[in-house]
Structures are given as C-alpha cells and as structure tokens.
C-alpha cells in the first residue's frame, strides 16, 4: 500500500490539477475567423476555423436543414440557423452548443438580422409571412402575414436587412415587394410595392444598403428599388435579357445576396440561361454578359471585387468558374467535387471554401493560385457561412 501512495500524489500534481485549472479557466479567443457549415442531411452544423482550416466542433439537433441559411449576431458569437422545417436555432460558436431552438413556422428557408442586432426575422413559406424574434431570447416580437388577394398568403423570399431596423423581402406568389419597419415591434409599419414582376425568387440589398434587387423567375429581368428615394418606385432592369428565346429548364433556383456587387458592377445569374449578366450600378444598364459552363446558382464576388466565382445548377454542378472582373474573361474552371452547392470566401478573400455535397467534403482553395489548400470531411455539406457576414449590410 505505502508503495503506491507517492504515485497517486504524482498523478494529482502533474495530471489532475492542471486539468482542473484548465477547466476552470476558459480559453480566451475571438470568433472572427470562425464559421459554420451546414450538413444538410444530418441536421447538424460544423463550427469551423478559417485560420487553421479545421473543424472545431459539431452541433447536432437542428432539425431539417435541407435548405438552410445563417446570419450572425453582431458580436459574432452566435449563429442563427434557419431550417427548412421552420426551425430557428441559435448556436453558440464559443461553447460549441445549441443555445436556443424554436420551431416558429411550418416551412422556411431564410432570415435576416436587424441593423442594431436585436431582432431576427424569418421569411416563411408556410404559413407565408414574416416573423420577428428577439435575437437574445428568440421570443416572438412581431408577426406579419404575407396576405394578398382574397385571404391568400404568399411564400416570402429574398429577405434582407435594410438600415433603420427594416427588413425588405419579396412575395413569390403575389409579385410584391414589402418593407417592414420593426423599430416599434408592437406596431410594425409595412410599405408594399405591387406588380414588381412575375414570381420573384430571391433578392439582395447592395452593400451600401441602398438598392434592393429582386430576381424574377416568371419573366426576364430584375426588379430594382432605390430605397433612398423619398417616394421609391420599382423599376425594371436587365429586362428582356432572354431576347425572346425560350429559357432552358431550371433545375435549381439561383441565389442572390449582396456579394453580387463587385466594385461598380453587379454580377447576376441569368435564369434559364448559361450566362452571368453584368450591369453598371450607377445607371443599372447592362454592360456585359458572360457565357459560363452552366446555369449559375451562386455568383459571388471575392471581397476585394477582383474575381467573381460561379457555381452551377444540376447537371453542371460539378464545376466552378472564376471570372476576372478586369477583363470579363473566365480565367479558371475548377472541379472541386460532385454536386457543388455553395462557396464562401474568407473575410478578406485569400481563400474560398466550396461544398461538394455528393463527395461529402468541403474543399478549400487559394484564390490567387487556385491550388487546393485542404479538404475537410462533411456529411452532404451545403451552405458555408463565415462570421464576417455579421458586419455586412444585407447578410
């Protein structure tokens, strides 16, 4: 017996005590280089680190994430995950835990966070409308049904935040665009614009928070609203870009977000065409159209605007192309893996992370040399969201 006692003391002093001390003292770190990757089939997100190109933690129990999007709290600590099943989950990136989760609707895909960071809004398909929650507790604070016609409710798409704690969004079934001002959540004020064009499928707010663009599925063109005008009116830009030709069948809807703007130009996916449309944001006239490999889904400018990266709808979803914004030429075609669903740049754009759903991996490329930096395993990965979004208007 007495022979074993010194050994136990040794264990306590050199092993257990340091562990206890480590447990008591949290590791201090920031979250600016973190992000989340959605594992769409598993109802799980991966918390990732873009400095070390690694997976930090897995967070389970987020429900149906077959189409999910994410916004971040302004302190970049929490990720709000909007799930297909109407779930809204608040994930703590520092603790790597699910902080709060509610199921607020039947079917939704997107949301936004207000300018002051205090309100999170969810765009719902079913029941169609906007619901607003406290970012802190996820308690409901406002409910704005997307009612139109004779008691019908429209699916809400293309939601983004506007300065002034407002949310702007489109009504897919009603061809309308609404701006909800929730500065007084008990009495939200809604401004409505109708006849904006047939079947708006998504929308974006420009990085200055001034213009809202709604992509139209039901006709060629983009609806544009200049929210700075005292009496804003919806205009049509890039009308008739299909030039009367029959569009190709669309196997996946394109997505729009403020990343479309690169310098003075905006780069937009053409619906049903293998083209990226380019317009000048000072006069909204078409300046170019760039032929690409397939029908674009995400058309994303690198944060410095020097390149625009494009992925494609089924069946061309194994490719990613890179447009040089100086020349308007495609300078690179990559094949990151099967079924590329999304791509996200690191905050200053030296690297891009690309999800390849059917290869169960996320591939990281250097955006200057196009060399592969790393591959991370992920189960059917879809959306990739980095915390730098927290400080961008329209994200």
């Amino acid at each position, binding site marked *: 017996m007495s022979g074993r006692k010194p050994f136990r003391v040794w264990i306590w002093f050199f092993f257990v005590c340091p562990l206890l001390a480590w447990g008591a003292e949290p590791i201090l770190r920031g979250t600016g280089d973190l992000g989340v990757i959605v594992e769409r089939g598993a109802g799980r997100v991966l918390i990732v680190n873009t400095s070390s190109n690694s997976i930090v933690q897995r967070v389970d129990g987020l429900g149906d994430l077959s189409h999910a999007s994410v916004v971040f709290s302004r302190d970049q600590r929490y990720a709000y995950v909007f799930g297909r099943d109407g779930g809204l989950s608040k994930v703590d990136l520092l603790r790597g835990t699910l902080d709060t989760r509610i199921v607020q609707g039947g*079917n939704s895909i997107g949301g936004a966070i207000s300018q002051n960071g205090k309100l999170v809004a969810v765009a719902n*398909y079913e029941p169609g409308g906007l619901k607003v929650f406290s970012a802190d507790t996820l308690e409901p604070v406002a409910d704005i049904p997307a009612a139109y016609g004779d008691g019908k409710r429209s699916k809400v798409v293309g939601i983004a935040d506007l300065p002034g704690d407002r949310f702007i969004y489109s009504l897919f079934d009603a061809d309308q665009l609404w701006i909800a001002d929730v500065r007084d959540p008990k009495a939200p004020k809604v401004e409505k614009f109708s006849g904006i064009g047939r*079947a708006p499928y998504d929308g974006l707010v420009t990085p200055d928070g001034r213009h809202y663009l709604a992509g139209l599925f039901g006709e060629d063109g983009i609806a544009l609203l200049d929210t700075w005008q005292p009496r804003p009116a919806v205009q049509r830009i890039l009308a008739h870009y299909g030039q009367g030709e029959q569009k190709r*069948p669309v*196997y*996946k809807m394109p997505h729009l977000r403020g990343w479309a703007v690169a310098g003075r130009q905006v780069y937009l996916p053409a619906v049903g065409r293998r083209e990226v449309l380019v317009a000048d944001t000072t006069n909204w006239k078409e300046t170019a159209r760039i032929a690409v490999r397939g029908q674009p889904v995400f058309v994303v400018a690198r944060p410095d605007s020097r390149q625009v990266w494009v992925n494609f709808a089924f069946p061309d979803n194994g490719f990613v192309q890179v447009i040089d914004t100086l020349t308007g030429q495609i300078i690179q075609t990559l094949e990151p893996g099967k079924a590329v669903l999304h791509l996200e740049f690191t905050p200053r754009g030296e690297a891009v992370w690309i999800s390849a759903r059917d290869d169960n991996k996320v591939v990281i490329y250097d955006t200057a040399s196009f060399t592969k930096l790393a591959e991370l395993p992920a189960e*059917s990965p879809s959306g990739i969201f980095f915390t730098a979004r927290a400080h961008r208007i329209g994200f």
Partner: protein
Amino acid sequence: MRQRAVLPPPWQFFQKASAGAKLARRSVFFAVAVGLGSAALSGIGLGYGPLALADPPPAPAPERGRELIRLVRQDCGSCHGMTLRGGLGPALLPENLSAQSPPALKYTILFGRPGTAMPPWQPFMTEAEADWIVTQLLRGFPEEAK
C-alpha cells in the same frame, strides 16, 4: 446504355406549338389508355387506389435505384424539400399526390409543368424510371441509405 424515354426532348414540348400539341395528344392518348386500364382492373374487383397501377413498374437495378432516390431527395428536394414536405414547390407526400393519377404524375416528372418552375426531368431518366419514382412517391418515398 440505358434506354431513354422515346419522346421528343422537353424544350420542344414548350417551344413549338405543333410538337407540343402532337405530344399533348399523345399524352392524352396514353393517359386515357392507362385510365381505361385501371378502370378495367377496378371493374374486375382489384379496387382502384393510387397504388393500383395497371402494370407495376419494374424496379431499377440496385445501383440505379440508389441514384434515383438520391436524385429525388437531393435535386427534386432543392424545391420540394429533402423530406418532400414542400418548399418553393409543393409537398410530394402520398397524401398530397393521391388526388392525381399516376400517369399524370409521371408526365409532370418527365415533361415538367409549363408556366411553373417545374422543369422536365426526361433528359435524366427513362419512362420506366419515372413510373417507378411515381410508385415510390405514392407509397412514401424511401430514404437514402447512409
């Protein structure tokens, strides 16, 4: 090489009125034929239900079956939801589909729905495979094997 559905490419269906009309006549003919077939079956006491197809479609080879399940769950799922409970497109659960006849569902899959976002999937599957997908949808579509 798998045999493709022997029908004109889907874009012609929407582009050229004449081809479209011809095809529409053909599909009406087909629908009527199958409709009569199932009516006849119900007449001889088999009962009419969504599953009472005149001719149960042959199951695809296991590997192709997995591909088709993945296609429906993932690619159809981008509009209809991976759980098929709906999204931008309507829900595709048995209770949502039972009001439509299996041939109508098959033709929607193969040729899409003009005027809506539903595209034609005929370039990516045979008619028999579309039949099989309809049968599976009406039964409750299988999950992807992990």
